[in-house]
């Protein structure tokens, strides 16, 4: 499969929502270890709202609006660091993008590169700062190495890279978010936001694999 149509893209985003909502408990625990424990509530709440907004907004005219709806729902219900950061993951790639009704891998890769830039501009985090950037940036790099790949190949690579990124966060001291105050004591624990990035790409992979 090389292209997703509007309905498929919508279904994939719905799948992402469901996967994150199902991971509420896991994300809570991960954030409790070195943060304030609200990442699961926040992400699940944001995704609930995104799901509802997608269901309510359908039918959509283009894929851009799908992503915008998801991102805005997250920013405006979650608040917090992750609302704006993860909202930007869906919004940040839309700038300058003409309205599209089919989504190919190259476009998606460009969107994620745009999202990464937006997130780094907003949050100032770089690789190694123990944030979701540590999962998103490797995923984007992995996708960029696979131009014109089919969706399954692309998403497997993205999810794998994100997973490695999550593992890597265990080695880092945090520079942002509530774990920063832990200093060395954060070492050994994975970052909550990075975990969410993996869950998102993995849900996309599972979706394209089964369709």
């Amino acid at each position, binding site marked *: 499969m090389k292209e997703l149509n509007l309905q498929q893209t919508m279904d994939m985003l719905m799948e992402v929502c469901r996967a994150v909502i199902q991971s509420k408990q896991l994300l809570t625990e991960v954030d*409790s270890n070195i943060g304030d*424990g*609200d990442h699961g*509530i926040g992400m699940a709440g944001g995704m609930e709202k995104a799901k509802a907004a997608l269901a309510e907004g359908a039918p959509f005219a283009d894929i851009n609006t799908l992503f915008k709806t998801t991102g805005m729902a997250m*920013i405006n219900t979650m*608040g917090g*660091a992750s*609302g704006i950061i993860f909202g930007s993951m869906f919004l940040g790639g839309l700038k300058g993008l003409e309205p599209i009704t089919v989504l190919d891998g190259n476009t998606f890769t460009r969107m994620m590169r745009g999202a990464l830039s937006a997130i780094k501009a907003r949050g100032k985090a770089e690789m190694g700062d123990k944030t979701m950037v540590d999962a998103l940036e490797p995923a984007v790099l992995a996708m960029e190495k696979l131009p014109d790949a089919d969706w399954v190949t692309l998403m497997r690579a993205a999810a794998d890279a994100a997973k490695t990124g999550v593992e890597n966060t265990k080695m880092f001291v945090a520079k942002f978010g509530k774990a920063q*105050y832990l200093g060395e004591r954060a070492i050994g624990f994975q970052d909550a936001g990075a975990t969410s990035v993996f869950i998102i790409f993995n849900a996309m992979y599972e979706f394209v694999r089964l369709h």
Partner: protein
Amino acid sequence: MKKIINDGQNVVAEMLSGYLSAYSRYYERVGNSNAFTYKNRRKHKVSIVIGGGSGHEPLFIGFVGKGLADAAACGNIFASPNPELIMKTAQAVDEGCGVLFLYGCYAGDNMNFDMAEELCALEDIQTAHVRIWDDCASAPKERKETRRGIAGDVYVIKVAAAAADAGYPLDEVVRIAEKARDNINTIGLATSPGSIPGLDKPTFELGADEIEFGMGLHGEPGIERTKMQPAAQLVNRMYDELKKEMLLQAGQQIAVLVNGLGSTTLLELNIVYHELAKHLTADGLDVHDVEINQFCTCQEMGGFSITILKLDEELKRFYDTACYSPYYAREALA
């Protein structure tokens, strides 16, 4: 965790519904959002908008009112409000004299308020912000812009709001708020965790006989975990930190806030001040005013913080004005 709630998702909306209907005399909701304004605010002045994560009540809801902020935007529990909510709140109180955002320095708040300012610019609302970073246990002095904002928020809000009420222009209110901010430090200690409504595990764990100095308002780790000690020793340690950090000297005029984090009682907080007063007297500090209360909490967390504000004549002038909200009321000081 036995919490008196209906549903973990709706706590902030329901809390505000209760607060705003109980105190409808004073407040008005912004649309049906989790933000509200003070009805009787002075007009033609710089507007003060505060906000942040909920769960720290009475902060922020209790610091909107006469001589205080004009509006508050309330995020979910421990999560910054979102940019649109903040922008709408600013819009609701903007008098064309500019809006000053005051909030604690946390990654989430910083990003959401930044984006809100971008949205405000699109609406032609002039804005500025002062981030509050009083918790001197959260980072060394050289990186104070990364410190957390905790109970010191109260003083910055009080002083900035008084300056705005006095008719100062935006850049002046910013200057005064920053001056207050730069003259405030806080240090806390936790004896037991709070819990997020709807979750059944507390936000962190502490041994039955352990306490932690410098722990943050969401259970972020502090500077030292020790065995429980008598009040006198706890206060000694905390005062030492503040004294070093703030270079406190005889004759310096200060205001002091002993703040309970949730379940620590007024009985205990007053005993804390009983101990603290001994140090302040011994060091010859000129104590202008003291508050002993629960202003900035972390749900039912046990523990307290001590905040000191160094006053000069200008800050004192704004400190001394009367203010009123259901949770923070003071007559004008002579």
